[in-house]
Every structure is written in C-alpha cells, then in structure tokens.
C-alpha cells in the first residue's frame, strides 16, 4: 500500500503548492476577472489537497491534515518542480496553469478506475471541478497565442521555459510497478502520452509550438524529495504565523 500512499502524497503536495502559488495573484491579477479566477482555483486546489491529506489521515494513519500539510520538512514533500516556481509574469502563470491542469485532470480521469476505492470516489468528484480549470487555461492559451506579436512571443517563450520543467510531473516514484500491478493507477507513462495527445492540438490552434526538451530530466527530483530553491522560502512563508506560536496552540 506504500505505492498508493506515495501517489496520494505527491498529488496532495502538488495541489497545495500550486494552490498557494495561484493565491499569490489575489489582489494583483491583471484584470478583476483573472484575480477572481486565480483565487477561486487556488481555493479549489487547496480544498483538493485537504481531501487527499484526509485520505492519508483516515486510511494510512498520518497526522491530521493541517499538521501534516504544514509540519513536514522540505525533503518530505513530493511535489514536482513545476508547481514550486514563483508566479513570474502572467505568461508563465498561464502556461504553467495549462500544462499542470491538463495533466491533473487526466490523472483524476485515470484514477476513477482505481482499485483503491477512496481515491476512485474522490477522483469522480474532483474531475468535474477541474473542467473549469482546464477550460480557463485553454481560453487564455488561445487568446494570448492568437493575440498580437508581443503576446504570441511571450507565450511561446514561456512555453519553451515551462515545458521541460513540466515533464517532471511524470517522474516515477520507486513504487511505480506496484501501482500498475495492483491497478491503483494507470501509470506516469500512460499519463504523459494522454497529456501530450491532449495539449498538442490546443497549442497548435493557438499558433504556438510545443518545444523539444533537450533534457527531459531537468524538472525531475521532486517526487523523490529533491526540490528547487524556491520551495523552502515558500514553506517558510506558509508557516510564518504558525511557527511564531508554541506547538499545540489553539487558534
């Protein structure tokens, strides 16, 4: 069961960290609707993380979600590098959102078939909510890709930067074989194929090109506890209030 636990952990950490990154747009979004959209998606993602940490608590005896989410050391996180990067300009945020959310919704679609029932049930719920996220991402990829020269070149350059890092989403953990054998999950290889099949036509319609990654391992490490230099400062910020009080303080 270690395999399914690791799978849930990396999904939860991805959702928590991208949720916090999305929330950094609250109050400074380029237009009001985008401020609201990023904030709403941040709320969804953190809620999904909570639901996943709750499974880890109920089924695997981990600490209560708040404590587990915020009380671990950096090396105990299993999020991928893509979600750790700062929000940057809106082009990077939009491209990351597009690349990450398509992989995420496809992962949940695969997981509706999982033999691990708590995850299969949650997947059925969450995949409907994520439809809004991918529709939002697609609309901005298209609009900015087809916008004007500046928006097009910014989107292409953000895609060139983010795509190789995004491949780290599909880094396999040490229990990948067990996941497949026990039919807990269809596997990272299958997921990556589905993802490329899904995103390529959308990128094409936006008159953008999917770059070739020179090094497919550049965004890897996160699934085994090796992170970018951006994660620790983010964890410090997330923990700033709670770490100012003694352990066990009632809020």
């Amino acid at each position, binding site marked *: 069961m270690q395999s399914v636990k690791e799978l849930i952990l990396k999904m939860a950490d991805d959702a928590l960290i991208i949720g916090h990154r999305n929330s950094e747009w609250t109050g400074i979004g380029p237009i009001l*609707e985008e401020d*609201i*959209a990023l*904030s*709403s*998606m941040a*709320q*969804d*993602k*953190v*809620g*999904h993380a*909570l*639901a996943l940490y709750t499974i880890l608590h109920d089924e695997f005896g981990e600490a209560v979600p708040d404590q587990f989410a915020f009380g671990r050391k950096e090396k105990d996180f299993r999020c991928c590098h893509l979600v750790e990067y700062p929000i940057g300009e809106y082009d990077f945020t939009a491209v990351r959102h597009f690349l990450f959310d398509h992989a995420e919704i496809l992962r949940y679609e695969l997981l509706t078939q999982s033999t691990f029932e*708590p995850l299969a*049930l*949650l997947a*059925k*719920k*969450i995949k*409907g*909510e994520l*439809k*809004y996220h991918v*529709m*939002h991402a697609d609309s901005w990829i298209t609009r900015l890709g087809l916008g004007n020269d500046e928006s097009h070149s910014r989107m292409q350059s953000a895609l060139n930067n983010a795509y190789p890092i995004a491949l780290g989403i599909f880094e396999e953990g040490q229990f990948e074989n067990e996941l497949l054998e026990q039919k807990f999950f269809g596997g990272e290889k299958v997921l990556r194929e589905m993802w490329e099949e899904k995103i390529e036509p959308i990128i094409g319609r936006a008159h953008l090109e999917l770059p070739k990654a020179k090094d497919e391992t550049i965004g890897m490490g996160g699934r085994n506890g090796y992170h970018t230099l951006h994660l620790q400062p983010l964890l410090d910020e997330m923990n700033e209030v709670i770490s100012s009080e003694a352990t066990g303080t009632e809020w």
Partner: protein
Amino acid sequence: MTEIIIEKNLVEEILAALEDVKDPEIPFISVVELGIITAVEVDNDNVKVKMIPTFTACPAIKLMQQQIRDRVLVMGFNKVEVVIDPSVAWSSDRVSEAGIKKLEKFGLGTAHRHGGEFSFNELSQSKCPHCGSNNTTMQSMFGSTLCRSMHYCFDCKQGFERFKPL
C-alpha cells in the same frame, strides 16, 4: 414492521426539519433543496445525517454540519452525527425543482439538467434570471463563490451570477 414505519416517519420528519437549515452563501435555499443531504439514519435515539459538499473546497461545510446537528438535536434526539458521505459526488442535477425556483427568485441563473457531464456550450448559455432572455453571455467562469459564474444579459443589460453546472 411497526418499527420500520416509525423510523421512516422519523426520517421524513428530520428531512422536513432540515428545510430550516440554509446554505450560508445562498440563504434562500435549504440543504435539502440543494441536494447535499445523502442519507438520514435513525437508530433509537441516535441519528446519523450523511451530507456532501457542493464543491470539494466549500468553506461553508463545517458551519452547515454544525447547523444540521443543532437543528436535529432540538428535535429531542440523544446523539446526532453529521458526516461527509464519500460515496456520492454532488452535481447541480441534485438541486430540487423547488430549489431551482428559489435560486431564480434570489436572482441567480441556474444550471440545465445535464445528466452527468456538462459541456463548454452549456456553460456559456444561461437564461437571465431577471428578464428570462436567453440572449446572454458568460463573462467569467469564476465568481463571488466557488459555485457561481458571472454573466451578462444583452436584453435587460444587467449582469447576473449563475449557480454553476457541475
């Protein structure tokens, strides 16, 4: 046989009482009309109410659990448990006909019955709750709460929010 009938009546009584518990974000509509109560189980003096959130990240869930518990407790039961039911996923199709009428009266657009999967077209087509026109457009698929999107009516020139399909 008699016992079963009594229990059935009790479940109906509890569901009727839960009409008093409203969604804190839309105080017109009850938790029953919203379709978030999935089961009520009565065992002598103990009651278990099973419920589900609309969106997973609904911030009102704890408050609603508390209000449901309080409402059933005043009916005289000894112990009332309100638990999340992981076996059912909420969908906008679960909102009752009465619930839809109340949402419209509250000034919110409502979701079409979609039978399981909603499409992008479905999102952008919403009837204006003010004048009933279908000549509307979606301005943003996210709104003031997770369960609402923002729209505009070309006929009555009013903005409105819609209770999203899910």
